[in-house]
Every structure is written in structure tokens, then in C-alpha cells.
């Protein structure tokens, strides 16, 4: 799960990182800092797993007022 500050919401961490990257001489236009949550679930029906992950994001992993999220499903292991 990738959780990011929503567009338009000031991201002070991103701004600090942006400033530091520029200080190092990199030409960067913008930086946003979010978080990655890696979860392992037993192999199951992919649609069911995706629906579960959606619920996890809505109920806990992201705050919908200030954060957006993306779900990436890996392969079976």
C-alpha cells in the first residue's frame, strides 16, 4: 500500500526533502513524502484480497481527509 499526502495538502516533510535535494545540486521540481505498508496475506482470491486491502486503508492505514492511497498486489509466492 502506498499512502501519500493528498494533492494540495502542504507536505512539510516533502518540502524539507526538496530543499535538501536542491542543496545537493539536483534539479527537482517537487517532492512529496508518503509511506509504504507491505503486507503479507495468505494466497486467496485476488479480488477478495484487494477488497480487504481497500477496507484496511479506509479504516486504518490512511486518513482519507488528508491522505490518498494506492494498492499494489504482488504475485503469488
Amino acid at each position, binding site marked *: 500500500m502506498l499512502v501519500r499526502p493528498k494533492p494540495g495538502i502542504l507536505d*512539510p516533510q516533502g518540502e524539507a526533502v526538496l530543499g535538501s535535494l536542491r542543496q545537493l545540486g539536483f534539479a527537482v521540481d517537487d517532492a512529496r513524502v508518503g509511506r509504504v505498508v507491505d503486507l503479507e496475506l495468505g494466497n486467496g482470491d485476488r479480488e477478495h484480497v484487494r477488497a480487504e486491502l481497500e477496507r484496511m486503508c479506509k479504516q486504518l492505514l490512511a486518513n482519507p*481527509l*488528508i491522505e490518498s492511497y494506492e494498492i499494489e498486489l504482488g504475485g503469488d509466492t
Partner: protein
Amino acid sequence: MSATAHEPKPRVAVVTFPGSNDDGDAVLALAGLGAEPVPVWHAERELRDVQAVVLPGGFSYGDYLRAGALARLAQVMESVRELAADGGLVLGICNGFQILCEAGLLPGALRANHSLSFVCRDVAVRVERADTPFTRRCREGQSLRIPVKHGEGCFFADAELLAELEASSRVVLRYEGESPNGSVAGIAGIANTDGNVMGLMPHPEHAVDPLVGSTDGALILGSLVDAARESLAEHAAV
């Protein structure tokens, strides 16, 4: 004969989560203001015979994920929710405010300070509403000096929510001058629609003794104790 000598004291629960660190000061402050503080561990299910509950400051669960996000799932929060629904008084201070927002008992969210710095200093806040159970000892427009100490105190509400908060006069406290954390509209404390749940970033429990510079915090916690005492008397009369 003093009427207060035999009057029962209002019971105010103070919840301790793993990582709370202002629970002790809250207990001391409430006791000094005439309440009977009731320490409650987060894993307890029940709040027994209390008229009010205080969620104190600190760093519950290390502020992991988001400040307050994990604490809102604590067992005791079910009882806090029930107390609030029954019209009981709920005050969230700093981390307690963050928990109330994450729990949906108050709207909005608290984010990292714009400066990214932890701020720890006295600030001046203006009382916007003196008719709440938490500010009745104050005057509207009064300036209070109370310390803040937080890294994630930037209150965020989107334009729609902010308009709603302002229209319904639910902003109870506002920072005077520049806000220490970048909160929208300088918001330092808000109440719910019914007015029985309030959250604020400043720490009234750290400002009840002249030894530390200000006793303005006693106006807030004293208001809470007064309201809790009234609620106790009303229930006793039934």
C-alpha cells in the same frame, strides 16, 4: 458550615495509553481543582460512574502510523464513545485531541507542524466561546497563556469543513498572532456539534500553578470540573 465539605466530588477519568505522559499532571491538576481523578488503563472496558473523561497528552503507541491512529482502537475508547453519546464530557489534550480526531469524535486531522520542528513554549490563545462546559470560567475574547509541546499540532480541515466549523461556532480556542504549528485559521481547540466533546493542542494541565508561570489552564480544567459537578448533582437529583 461549608457546603462543599460533604458534597461528593465529580469523578473524572484520566486514561493512560501506552506512551501517554501527561496523565500524571492531569490527575494532579484535576485533584487540585476539586475533582476526584480516576486513573483508567487503556485496556479497561468500563468507565465506572464518571461524569467526564480526559484523554491526556503524550505519544500513545509512539505516534506510529499517525498520531492517535492506533490509540483510538483501544478497548476503553468504546466506553469513551458511549459516554460522549450519552452527553458525558470528553476533553482531549494534545495527543488526546489527535485521538479524538482519529476516532471520529471530532472532525479534522492533526498533521506535522509546518516548521517540522517540535514546539514547546507558552502560547497565547483567545477564547472564542465561553459558553462551553470547558470554557465557562473564561470570558469570550479572553487571552489565555498556556504551553504547547507538540510536533504534530497543525489542525487541518478542508475548505468545506472549515466553513462548517466557523458557521457553527465550534472553534473554541484560537492562537493569537502567528500559530505555532500552521493550523488552518489558527485553530487551537474545537468542540463537537453537541458541545460535550472538545479537543485542544495547548496543555491546560501544565498551567495550574503560579510556580510555572501561568494558572490560565485552571480556567479550562476548572470549567470541566464545574460542569462535571453539575452533571453529578443533576443525576443525584433524579
